């Protein structure tokens, strides 16, 4: 059995992942023509490259169909319940930074913290008769974060894109979304809560805990880990 390494199949995330491995003496490359999702690992035996959509890598790791995978730490936490029992973070890779934050309209002069958001949500519910809506696609992460913070009387509404626009369109009162510079938020008259950082995400190399590891795979993994300079 060979070790399967799952890597994002396109775009900057793929390029940066290839660079990251290359800097450590492991060459990942695509094979076949440009549209074919096939790849190879040079310089190491027993490791197979699998090109996957970044969003599917968490699920494949959790199921043990791949032993190693590169994906955003936010995606793992969002998609996999009890993720820590299913995989382990080997190394943050220093790119693909994205912060999941909670933002509210800038005109809410009274709301700067989660504590304020909770109080505003209570008042909003008694005024409007429904729970204050927060638009997001990161349901699990946001719900767990707000539960920890003791925020009540809110509801999550699903938004798979253009989330910053939901407030102006009156489909939500606040948003929980990924930001890197905050420009889109500002352009949409939103501000980040001072303690509203849900998760600081970056591309991360994960190792599955579920996969059935043979001695051979373990040895191949140790060779890879040494090359990558991972502490174990």
């Amino acid at each position, binding site marked *: 059995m060979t070790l399967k390494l799952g890597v994002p199949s396109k775009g900057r995330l793929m390029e940066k992942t290839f660079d990251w491995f290359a800097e450590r003496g492991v060459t990942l490359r695509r094979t076949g023509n440009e549209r074919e999702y096939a790849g190879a690992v040079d310089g190491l035996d027993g490791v197979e490259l699998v090109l996957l959509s970044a969003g599917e890598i968490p699920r494949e790791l959790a199921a043990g169909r791949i032993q190693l995978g590169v994906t955003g730490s936010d995606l793992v936490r969002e998609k996999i*319940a*009890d993720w820590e*029992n299913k995989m382990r973070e080997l190394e943050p890779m220093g790119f693909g930074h994205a912060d999941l934050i909670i933002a509210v*309209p*800038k*005109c*809410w*002069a*009274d709301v*700067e*913290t989660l*504590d*304020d958001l*909770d*109080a*505003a949500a*209570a*008042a*909003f519910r008694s*005024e*409007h008769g429904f*729970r*204050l809506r927060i638009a997001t696609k990161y*349901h*699990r992460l946001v*719900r*767990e974060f*707000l*539960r920890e*913070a*003791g925020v*009540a*009387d*809110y*509801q*999550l509404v699903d938004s798979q894109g253009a989330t910053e626009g939901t*407030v*102006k369109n*009156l489909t939500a*009162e606040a948003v929980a979304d990924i930001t890197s510079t905050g420009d889109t938020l500002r352009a*949409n*008259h939103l501000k980040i809560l*001072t303690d509203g950082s849900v998760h600081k995400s970056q591309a991360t190399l994960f190792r599955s805990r579920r996969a059935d590891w043979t001695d051979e795979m373990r040895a191949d993994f140790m060779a890879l880990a040494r090359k990558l300079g991972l502490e174990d």
Partner: protein
Amino acid sequence: MASKSAIRAEAARLFDRFQAAGAQPVEASVLQSADTLLDLYGEDIRSRAYVTADPLQGEMMLRPDFTVPVVQMHMSDGAEPARYTYMGEVFRKQEHDDGRPSEYFQVGYEVFDREDPEAADAEVFALFADVLSPLGLRAATGDIGILLAAVDGLNTSDRRKAALKRHLWRPRRFRTLLDRFGGRTSMPETRARLLKTVKKVGVDGVLDQAGAEIGLRDRSEVAKRITALEEDAATPPIAAGEVDILDHILSLREKSPNALENLRDIAVDLPNISGAVQRLERRLDALSAKGVDVSKLDFEASYGRTTMEYYDGFVFGFYAESRPDLPPLASGGRYDALTRVLGQGRSIPAVGGVIRPAQVLTLTEGKQ
């Protein structure tokens, strides 16, 4: 783990016991309106209940408990007084892999009776104690009504009391608020800055500078909250003595007669809890009359604060001391406020509880 048919048979046995005690058997739909449950429990219920979509009825949930549908049924067409029993499966999503089942049987007994609430509390508890007596369980009891009365009795603004009561079931958040209202911690820096600016340029001045008005929460709502924040900043802290009393109540863990004595002493300084303490006394008398040895009955004032959000009076649970890994074999309590929420203007004192037959079997099998 017992087989499902064995669990069903055990459930049927308990169901018979409850009917023999005078309860009318009732059924509840597996599919429940998600809106009702979400409004009651908040967004958190999504992580605990299975959500599914019906093309006509919209979002539905597999019933996470029977209490809500039984209360709805009683409030829409129940005769008074009423005693109900039910058996069936409930469905709970498990987000952590700790071996807890995601579907399991419950057998319940619920009493809707205005006549004598403390007697009804005692009736339910004594029945459960009797049914479970062969298992040698430890009973835990508490009374959320005492906590609510204690908060109501604080010498502070209604707004602060409302905030504390709203978070009674979130102990950490409750503590943060109590520390702030008691002057043990200062207000957040951002709020101090806001209030300073308001003092300088007025509420309208602040709002004029705040940026484009977007969203449903409008300028008047923001202004209203800023005014509330100003008022709160001008409200003196809750006296240290009162916070100490509240802390004392929250940490109270005693055998029931001692707890009652303790609470009577506390009521001298916090007279608002007197009514709730008298109810505790009447309940203990009613329990004694039903043959419960209250001198050995544990009372924890904080019991039920983390798990039982709709209970607002007497609360109880039965635990196997030899198996601390098991969730309680039975639990229940009083939920008068829930009947008001679901009763569309009407309400009735109500108390009840459930037994988990699978846990009963786990324990009896272990004993054999």
